[in-house]
């Protein structure tokens, strides 16, 4: 047994607003100090979680992140600052947390959580808080928590909406009870439909932090068995009943998942999706070659298939706008005899738009690889990236 845990006079002063509440008190503050919490991700959800759980006096917090701070993170990931752009998120997060409360032990796990390391990392913590941004890691965190019988405090955000609940608490429902399978990659919202109000993960992350603290303190009524939905635009909270699915493959009566699996494969993501395929010049064209065509005065039509609000952020001179969803309806505006180059933000939507044109008899259709982002990188840096 370790030595008895107590609070120093500095800690007593620091936590005085906890100590004077009977629901926390000395006993509760010591529970917080004895507790260990693993934060998976130090992004939008992880940022407020890290700041407030540290301030509240959790004894030991583990951080899992291998990403670096990007300029586009700063709109919501308030644990990182402008000076931190380019630094590992885990370094920047730990610096912020140490500044807030030097009494908290912070453990670094600067790795991607995988099926090979998840059990080893999670087993040393009492609670796991899921602040990840992708389906494979969500299912991985869920399954690992179920297998190790660790509560998984869940939050998720999209645009103006968020969800939160507590999974796998004392045999309660898990993420797979709620969603047995992830959406196929083709039905995951693309960057056209994505985005998030920067304040939203603050709200949801702090709901997760509240639930974590309540579970540790053993007070109140937790979100176990309830899925909380938050709509920032309507400013409404709703809750739905969350039941344990007796047929759940990982926590049900007849379990088929008894160890961690390949979550990339489970989510339908090809193993080497990140590797750039060589450009197929019959169907694709590089931004610099599009620029060369413009400079030569070649006759062709450049079609931007992004949304009008994206066109307002940045556009390529000479392009016309036909959002991807309207291409099939607006074929009449294009001439099948013309050479047509299509682009979007990154190249995904324009590839679909090219398919629509080809299916309608257009033969001279090229997709500009990498979209306006690559145009900014390789042709004209004055075009803003977003």
């Amino acid at each position, binding site marked *: 047994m370790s030595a008895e845990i107590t609070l120093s006079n500095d800690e007593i002063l620091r936590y005085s607003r906890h100590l004077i509440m009977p629901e926390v008190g000395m006993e509760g503050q010591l529970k917080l100090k004895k507790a260990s919490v693993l934060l998976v991700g130090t*992004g*939008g*959800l992880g940022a407020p979680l890290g700041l407030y759980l540290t301030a509240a006096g959790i004894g030991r917090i583990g951080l899992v992140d291998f990403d670096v701070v990007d300029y586009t993170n700063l709109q919501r990931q308030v644990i990182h600052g402008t000076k931190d752009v380019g630094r590992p998120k885990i370094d920047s997060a730990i610096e912020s947390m140490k500044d807030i409360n030097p009494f908290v032990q912070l453990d670094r796990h600067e790795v991607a959580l995988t099926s090979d390391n998840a059990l080893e990392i999670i087993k040393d913590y009492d609670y796991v808080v899921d602040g*990840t*941004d*992708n*389906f494979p890691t*969500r299912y991985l965190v869920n399954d690992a928590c179920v297998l190790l019988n660790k509560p998984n405090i869940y939050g*998720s*955000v*999209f*645009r*103006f*909406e968020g*969800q939160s609940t507590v999974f796998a608490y004392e045999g309660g429902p898990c993420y797979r009870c*709620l*969603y*047995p*399978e*992830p*959406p196929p*990659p083709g*039905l*995951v*919202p*693309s*960057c*056209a*439909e*994505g985005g*998030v109000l920067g304040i939203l*993960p603050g709200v949801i992350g702090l709901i997760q932090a509240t639930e974590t603290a309540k579970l540790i303190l053993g007070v109140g009524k937790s979100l176990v068995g309830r*899925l909380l*939905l938050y709509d920032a635009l309507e400013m409404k909270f*709703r*809750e*739905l*009943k*969350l*039941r344990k*699915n007796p047929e759940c493959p990982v926590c049900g009566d007849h379990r088929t998942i008894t160890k961690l699996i390949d979550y990339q494969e489970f989510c339908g993501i090809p193993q080497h999706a990140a590797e750039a395929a060589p450009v197929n010049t019959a169907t694709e064209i590089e931004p610099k070659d599009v620029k060369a065509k413009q400079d030569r005065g070649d006759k062709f039509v450049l079609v931007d298939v992004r949304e009008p609000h994206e066109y307002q952020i940045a556009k390529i001179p000479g392009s016309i706008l036909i959002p991807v*969803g309207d291409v099939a309806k607006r074929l009449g505006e294009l001439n099948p005899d013309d050479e047509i180059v299509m682009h*979007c*933000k*990154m*190249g*995904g*939507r324009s*590839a679909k738009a090219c398919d629509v044109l080809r299916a309608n008899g257009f033969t001279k259709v090229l997709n500009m690889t990498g979209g306006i982002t690559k145009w900014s990188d390789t042709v004209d840096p004055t075009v803003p990236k977003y």
Partner: protein
Amino acid sequence: MARILIPTPLRQFAEKNDNVEVAGATVGEVLTALTTRFPDLKKNLYNDEGKLRSFVNVYLNDEDIRYTGKEATAVTDADTLSIVPSIAGGAHVG
């Protein structure tokens, strides 16, 4: 007519509506009426075998229809149906 709440990711397939009223005596009838009115919603709600997709949950008021009789669950005019898809934050493709 029952009210049906359409979540943000699916509004683009429902003429940007966040909620609509549709007729139907069962959850299945309401969803059929919904996807008849907005055909683009169909492939997002149902798989090729015509079954509700497993990452799209449907609730009658606060109950998951998987535990109340699925699409056969009776619906009254006072009920609210919610479609609640799984969401996963900032990682995007395309």
